[in-house]
């Protein structure tokens, strides 16, 4: 990674291409397809993805750097899905954010998080001891349930060398949402997973990625991959996370400029694998309600995981319905790419998400399942804001509910 992102404005778009990813923006033919596909086009009528490229190429990128739009963008990538010239707007937006960040214009909440990441290795400022204590305490809270599965299941493994799986959680699991952590503990117990947590790497998120701070983004990936190697893990298993998973799966090799001999898997993929092999036994139709699935942008559109969660949900739910559009055309929840963490966006993140809201309501589903912590937060907040008659659950929560005792 060069230092251009730290030193200020790029002269032209070519430095944007090189520093964050290859992307030939100058081949844009201004076809304008992205204008229609961006879920922000109506909320921000004076700007759109095509205009961002035009302004940047015309030397007016400062206008874009100073705009709110680049922070309202969720990096969902929908606008350039099927782009006739294969341009990826999320790469460009991240670069523009990197320039804003270098100019001290990044949202303060994100800057605080990054400060904590640099000090503690995670965005909420929890140290290793506190993490271990909290994780053990959360396990204790569901000790009986875990011990019912098997006796030692309530012992949370830390830094266990030679374990097959290194599991990297999202900080929400040991702060605001311990239920999620318990869900994963139960899953690991049921499938008798050979797993461990690390007291060095226990945050799957990558906030520097959000602000285009590539140096620190790479450093986090480096630390995670190295820790998995140190422990001798064969699999780097991520929680139900969007961007953190996508970075490890899709970008890590290129960023580290080396091949990573450790399999990167999301926990939903692992559940699917065990379900297919018979190691995870689920009760068909166990969820006696109508379920629909929201494709997280990072998991779906960017990595291509569409069918695994659907197959699982179709098996365990009495009735599964699709929202439209779905899969690679799925509409973003409106909270990704740092938007739900960025307090500057305030309630705008709900106003921007009315398309998603209407799409959910049209299904008439009782339960909306998804597999990304960011989507879960945003959709949960939307549920209460708009009083949506739908329960928001993670795919793994439903799976654990449907496990055969």
């Amino acid at each position, binding site marked *: 990674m060069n230092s251009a992102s730290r030193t200020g404005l790029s002269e032209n778009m070519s430095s944007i291409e090189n520093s964050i990813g290859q992307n030939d923006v100058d081949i844009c033919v201004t076809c304008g397809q992205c*204008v229609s596909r961006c879920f922000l086009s109506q909320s921000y009528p004076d700007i759109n993805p095509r205009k961002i490229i035009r302004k940047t190429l015309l030397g007016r990128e400062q206008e874009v750097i100073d705009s709110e739009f680049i922070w309202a963008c969720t990096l969902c990538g929908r606008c350039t899905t099927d782009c006739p010239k294969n341009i990826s707007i999320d790469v460009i937006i991240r670069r523009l954010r990197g320039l804003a960040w270098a100019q001290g214009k990044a949202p303060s909440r994100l800057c605080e998080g990054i400060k904590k990441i640099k000090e503690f290795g995670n965005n909420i400022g929890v140290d290793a001891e506190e993490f271990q204590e909290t994780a053990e305490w959360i396990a204790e809270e569901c000790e009986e349930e875990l011990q019912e599965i098997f006796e030692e299941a309530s012992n949370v493994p830390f830094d266990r060398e030679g374990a097959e799986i290194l599991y990297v959680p999202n900080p929400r699991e040991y702060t605001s949402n311990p239920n999620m952590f318990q869900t994963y503990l139960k899953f690991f117990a049921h499938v008798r997973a050979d797993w461990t947590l690390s007291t060095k790497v226990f945050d799957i998120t990558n906030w520097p990625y959000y602000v285009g701070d590539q140096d620190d983004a790479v450093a986090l990936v480096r630390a995670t991959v190295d820790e998995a190697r140190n422990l001798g893990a064969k699999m780097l298993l991520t929680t139900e996370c969007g961007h953190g998973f996508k970075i490890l799966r899709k970008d890590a090799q290129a960023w580290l400029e080396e091949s990573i001999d450790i399999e990167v898997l999301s926990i939903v993929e692992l559940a699917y694998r065990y379900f297919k092999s018979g190691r995870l036994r689920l009760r068909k139709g166990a969820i006696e309600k109508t379920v629909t699935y929201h494709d997280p942008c990072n998991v779906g559109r960017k990595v291509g995981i569409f069918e695994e969660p659907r197959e699982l949900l179709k098996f365990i739910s009495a009735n599964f319905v699709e929202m439209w559009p779905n899969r690679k055309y799925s509409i973003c929840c409106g909270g990704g790419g740092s938007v739900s963490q960025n307090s500057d966006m305030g309630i705008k993140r709900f106003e921007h998400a009315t398309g998603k809201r209407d799409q959910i309501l049209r299904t008439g589903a009782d339960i909306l399942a998804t597999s990304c912590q960011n989507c879960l937060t945003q959709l949960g907040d939307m549920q209460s804001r708009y009083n949506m008659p739908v329960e928001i659950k993670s795919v793994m929560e439903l799976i654990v509910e449907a496990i055969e005792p």
Partner: protein
Amino acid sequence: MLALPCKNKDKEVLISGMRDHTSGQVVIVGGGIAGLITARLLSENGIPFAIIERSARLGGHTKDWACMATDKCNRCHSCAVFDYEDLVASSPNGEILLRHELFSVTRSKSGLHSVGIRNLDSGAERELHSMALVLAVGFETFDPTEKGFWGYGTFEGVMTLSDLNSLMRLDELNKLRPDNEKPLNLAFFQCVGSRDKAIGANYCSQYCCAAAIRAALRILHKYPDSKIAIFYIDLQISGKVARTLVDQAQEMGVRFLQGVPGEIQPSEDGELKVIVERNGRNVVERFNRIVLSTGQRPSSSASAISSMTEAPLNEFGFFQTRSQLDLVRSPLDRIYIAGSCSGPANIPDVAMNAGKVVSAIIRDLELAI
């Protein structure tokens, strides 16, 4: 209408005592407009031919096309196919093999090809001796369901330019306005499946700009109360006729709008809505019909025929020609490429190209009478 070649049958000579290297026929694979013009010109020069056509009729895509005349001919040239079909059918030195396909091609030492063909109905096989092989397998229309954002096949009201053409050809344009009260509010989306790297079609399909404008004029001629917009990236048309068409369309109120909407959404009132940038702002436009001007993709039979004949395909899947300046010869001797199977083309381009194919055959095989 195109200027037709000489109709003087006296000039047509059945070749009986041909030299060795010119025994047999010129085998033309494909009975579309390119194959037909090639056949007719060969026949005019006394060269025997056989047309192999998979479908049950001649004429290919051109025959599906509607006449675009309004109060005057708009020079779409689609009617040429009927003239050529008649001329070819009445040629004394040709064979037309409908419902037949190629299944083998063997090259002999003398450079001739032995071509195995099969009757698709009876399964009967036959061998033809070919002094030259002309590949004229045409193109495939892009299938817009590949790009789900446009909702083709999902939304009523979204159709392709081919669909619209079928309605015009069958004189069923009235189907577009069932209640006959509401005027048509129709948009054309250009470059659907063209100039698109994401689907391996990073090229212009050449015919669609002019075709969309002609279709717009035709609709306005029939229903003058129609509102029509053409969304384009940039108009890839040239020549005096094309410019006239644009002027004529603008005078009749057709709006030419830069930028092609990338997603169609159903609106609350049952119409179709798109978000577009106009005068620097993102605005919503509504239509009751949207026509996707679908581009030309390589023929689905191109790769099979390429492996049979060893005639190579280019990066796009069209047949490769010998050089940038030789657009009718394949890199292999005695294999010629006619019409749109070497790349997208409109009808006049195909006519010119077929003429060059025939003159190359005559020159290469020393067949001049």
